[in-house]
């Protein structure tokens, strides 16, 4: 199979018409690119014999052997139908709680039935030497993790919130972000739209304002603190009271901190509706990565955008700029000037509807069914069906919370802030170190981060 260089495995497959990257374990549903940032399970594949590789973040290389992690025939349509109907006869927590006793049954299950579904095949032996070598000698501490020691201020997430904190920090500083450059999840997208080849943003002043705030921040950070930035790295674990495990490409790094600034942003929220796992449904943060990091081709593709807020308009603007045919279903209120701009630009736009169901349409298209919203007039049983190559669902994101929680910070579910967030803006940990929450990770909306001062109150 041929593809562009300089993209990820998942995008290369997508552009070759292969969206279906994995099967779900229980029902055998098709799964495809979802988060595009190494959080979910949808893109796990077997690459060069190594199982469970996240293909959304793996750069494509010549001669790679990429396989689905299951026996395709097992999940053929008749079997899927059987699983779907038969599944109702079994208890909810069925598939990994049964078949454990007696031993012969367990063997049969583990050796025969489980491999059929593709779950749990070990790496091929020929590839074992390529895995990181075991430490030599008796000292287990020589490899493969590097200790960065104690860092006064450790900032996870170099979006606007993290950069503002970095510029105020004193002492030793380390700023970590999973993007190669500082600026956050919307940086490259805003840069493209506000660049010399960008579209006229007069009708979308918020997108220009966001760039006017973000760009000087990034430039000041790079001038003053650029050497303290480590791009392409992630925090992957927190060990109480102040230990952090970082992953930089394939290197592991450990560090402790005096003050942790948690500004890792938010995760896409797709919502709960029938068919919410259909391949081709993504969130805006995934879209920004796919377009600007991986260079996904959307020329002449029909893209459905559902939702509201800054991300809806940023997604629509960048997709239209890249030559996609956008069709918007705007939920919620406000954003009147953007709505009229979209109408003037000839974008298909509908309001007063809510997403009721999404279905796959063949292998590479989807159909979304909308019903009238609660407040809209008209018969309640009327439906609008829209077909598209893919859809972007722009809802309030879920603040990231996992590492601070592992470090001992309390997290409370606050739907008004998007999900689990810290009730306090700053938390003192048992060892005397602190965690401060900023930006979307603290429950702020991206539009506030983009246009207002960081001290603005959460609505």
């Amino acid at each position, binding site marked *: 199979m041929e593809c562009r260089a300089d993209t990820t495995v998942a995008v290369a497959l997508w552009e070759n018409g292969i969206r279906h990257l994995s099967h779900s374990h229980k029902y055998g549903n098709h799964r495809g690119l979802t988060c595009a940032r190494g959080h979910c399970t949808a893109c796990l594949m077997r690459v060069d014999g190594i199982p469970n590789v996240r293909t959304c973040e793996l750069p494509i290389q010549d001669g790679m052997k990429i396989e689905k992690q299951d026996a395709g025939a097992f999940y053929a349509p008749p079997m899927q139908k059987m699983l779907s109907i038969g599944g109702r006869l079994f208890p909810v927590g069925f598939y990994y709680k049964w078949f454990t006793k007696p031993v012969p049954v367990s063997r049969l299950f583990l050796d025969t039935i489980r491999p059929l579904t593709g779950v749990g095949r070990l790496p091929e032996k020929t590839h074992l030497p390529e895995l990181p070598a075991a430490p030599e000698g008796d000292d287990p501490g020589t490899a493969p993790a590097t200790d960065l020691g104690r860092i006064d201020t450790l900032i996870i997430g170099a979006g606007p919130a993290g950069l503002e904190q970095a510029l105020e920090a004193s002492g030793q500083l380390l700023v970590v972000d999973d993007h190669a450059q500082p600026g956050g999840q919307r940086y490259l997208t805003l840069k493209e739209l506000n660049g010399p080849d960008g579209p006229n943003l007069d009708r979308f002043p918020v997108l220009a304002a966001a760039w006017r705030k973000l760009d000087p921040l990034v430039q000041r950070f790079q001038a003053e603190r650029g050497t303290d930035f480590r791009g392409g790295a992630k925090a992957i674990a927190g060990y109480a009271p102040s230990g952090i495990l970082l992953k930089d490409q394939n290197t592991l790094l*450990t560090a402790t901190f005096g003050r942790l600034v948690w500004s890792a942003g938010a995760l896409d929220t797709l919502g709960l509706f029938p068919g919410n796992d259909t391949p081709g449904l993504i969130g805006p943060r995934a879209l920004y990565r796919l377009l600007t990091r991986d260079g996904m081709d959307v020329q002449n593709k029909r893209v459905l955008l559902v939702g509201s807020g800054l991300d809806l308009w940023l997604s629509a603007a960048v997709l239209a700029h890249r030559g996609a045919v956008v069709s918007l279903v705007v939920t919620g209120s406000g954003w009147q000037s953007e709505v009229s701009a979209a109408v003037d630009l000839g974008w298909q736009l509908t309001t007063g509807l809510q997403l009721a169901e999404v279905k796959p349409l063949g292998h590479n298209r989807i159909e979304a069914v909308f019903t009238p919203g609660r407040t809209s007039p008209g018969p309640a049983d009327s439906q609008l069906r829209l077909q598209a190559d893919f859809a972007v669902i722009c809802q309030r994101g*879920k603040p990231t919370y996992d590492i601070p929680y592992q470090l001992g910070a309390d997290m409370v579910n606050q739907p008004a802030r998007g999900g689990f967030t810290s009730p306090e803006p700053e938390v003192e940990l048992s060892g005397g170190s602190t965690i401060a929450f900023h930006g979307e990770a603290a429950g702020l909306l991206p539009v506030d981060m983009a246009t207002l001062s960081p001290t603005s109150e959460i609505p």
Partner: protein
Amino acid sequence: MIRPKTFLCRCEDVTLDEFRQAFREGFSEMESLKRYTGVGTGFCQGKGCLSEAACELAELRDLGPDQIRLTNIRPPAESMTFGQLAALDIPDPAEQPEVES
């Protein structure tokens, strides 16, 4: 054509109906629901589902959404080899403070 399912947890293939069924079967705490249905035990450790599950459970129990607490989130967030894991000098989890469920 089978009507598509509403998935609560994509990693472990738990549908919203299954979660509600488990609640009707008597699992009323987030911890026991997690163990029974598998919600939040997958690769993402709940990034995709725990706030939705907490809101759903709060509604089923007629509680405020803030009344449902997080379950444990096991590190690390990325898969790594046993070799890498074994070479890490990290505190013994047994010595870590217990997290309320």
